[in-house]
C-alpha cells in the first residue's frame, strides 16, 4: 500500500504542508518496502485547477491513501474518481509524525460533509 503525505520539504522530518493542491512536495510511503520517496508536486504552480491536477499526480504515483490538511470540492471529486482515501492531519507535525498518527488511527477520514467552502 502507498500512502501520500503533503510535505513542505523533501525529507520525512519536514513539516507537513498547510495546503493540499499547492503543497511543495508529496511524500509517498510504501508500506511493503517501508521506504519514503519524495516527489515534486507539479500541480502547485497551476493558475487554476490545481486540486484536480494534484490528485492526478497522486493517482499516477499509484497512491491508495493520502494525508491532507484540507480539501476543496474538486480535489474531493477527483480523489473519489481515483479511489484514493483521504485523512486529515493537524498542522505543525512532521511528515513522519503524521504517518505514525495515521497508523495509530488518530487521523479522521475526510468525508464530503466535513468540508467547508466550495473552492
Amino acid at each position, binding site marked *: 500500500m502507498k500512502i501520500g503525505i503533503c510535505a513542505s520539504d523533501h525529507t520525512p522530518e519536514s513539516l507537513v504542508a498547510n495546503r493540499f493542491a499547492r503543497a511543495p512536495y508529496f511524500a509517498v510511503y510504501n508500506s511493503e518496502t517501508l521506504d519514503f520517496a519524495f516527489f515534486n508536486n507539479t*500541480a502547485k504552480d497551476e493558475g487554476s485547477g490545481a486540486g484536480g491536477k494534484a490528485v492526478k499526480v497522486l493517482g499516477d504515483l499509484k497512491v491508495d491513501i493520502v494525508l491532507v490538511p484540507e480539501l476543496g470540492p474538486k480535489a474531493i471529486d*477527483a480523489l473519489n*474518481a481515483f479511489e484514493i482515501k483521504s485523512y486529515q492531519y493537524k498542522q505543525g507535525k512532521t511528515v513522519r509524525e503524521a504517518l505514525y498518527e495515521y497508523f495509530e488511527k488518530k487521523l479522521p477520514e475526510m468525508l464530503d460533509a466535513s468540508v467547508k467552502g466550495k473552492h
Partner: protein
Amino acid sequence: MKIAILSGKGGTGKTTLSVNLFSSLNKVTLIDADVEEPNSHLFLKGNTYHEEDINKQYPVVDHDLCTLCGKCGEFCNFNAIIPAKKKVLVFDDLCHDCGGCKLVCPTNAISYTDKAIGKIFYQSVGDNKQFLYGRLTVGEVSGVRIIEYLKNVTKKEEVLLIDSPPGTSCSTVAAIEGSDYCIIAAEPTPFGLSDMRMVVELLREQKLDFGVVVNKSNLGNDDIYKYLEEEGIELLENIDFREEFAKIIARGELLVDHSEYVRNIMNSIIKKVLGETYA
C-alpha cells in the same frame, strides 16, 4: 461612430461619463461592457424588455465509448478534464471551451453541452435610446465572450458608447476593439497617472485614437497635465471634484440632471468627439 470609455484605474468616472454622455445625446446606444461589475443600469433605471443567456460549452463524456486512454487529459491546458480510474472527470468551470478534448478523443466519446456563463439585458431608455448590459455569473473566470456578444449585436449602431471594464487585460481589449475613438477617464493622482500610462500603451498598441477627461481635477497635482502635454495627448475636459457630485453619483442619479456645469462639459466632449451636429 463607436466610442469606448475606459480607464486604467477603477473609480475614475467611466460609468459617470458613459451615462451622462448617453443622457446628453438624442439618438444613441450604450453598452455596459464591464460585465464583472456592471453599474450603468443603476443610473439609467430603464425597463428590461428582453434578456438572453450567454452560454459556453463544456465536454460530456460517454462512458460506454470511453476507453480511459487519457488523451483528453493530456491535451487539456486548463485541468478541466481528468481521466481517473473508472471515469473521466469534467470540471465545467475550468473549461475554456477550446474544443481540444473532442478533437483528440480516438473513440468519439466526447460531445459538448451548453452552460450559461452570464446574461445580456436589453433596456429601452426613452425614444431612440437603447441600453444593453451584460452580467457575468459569479464564479466564472472570464467575461470576454459576453462582451463580444454585446459588441456583435450592436455593431450596426450609428452612435455607440461602450462603458468598458477597468484595467488593461483581455476583457478591456475585447470591449475597445474596433472603436473609432476612446475616452480615457483619468484622475490627477499618482495612482491615476500610473494606471493611465498603461492604458495609453494599450491604445497605442491597438492603434486607436483617444483623448482624456480628467475627473476630480482639483484633487491631486499637475503631473498628469505635464504628461499629456509631453505625449501630445488631447485633453478633452476637466471635471471638478465636488462633494455634492459625489453624493449625486452615490445615490445613482445623473449629474446632468442636477448641474449646468456638467451639462456644458458633456456637450463640449460631444462636440469634440462626435462633432457639432450631435451636441
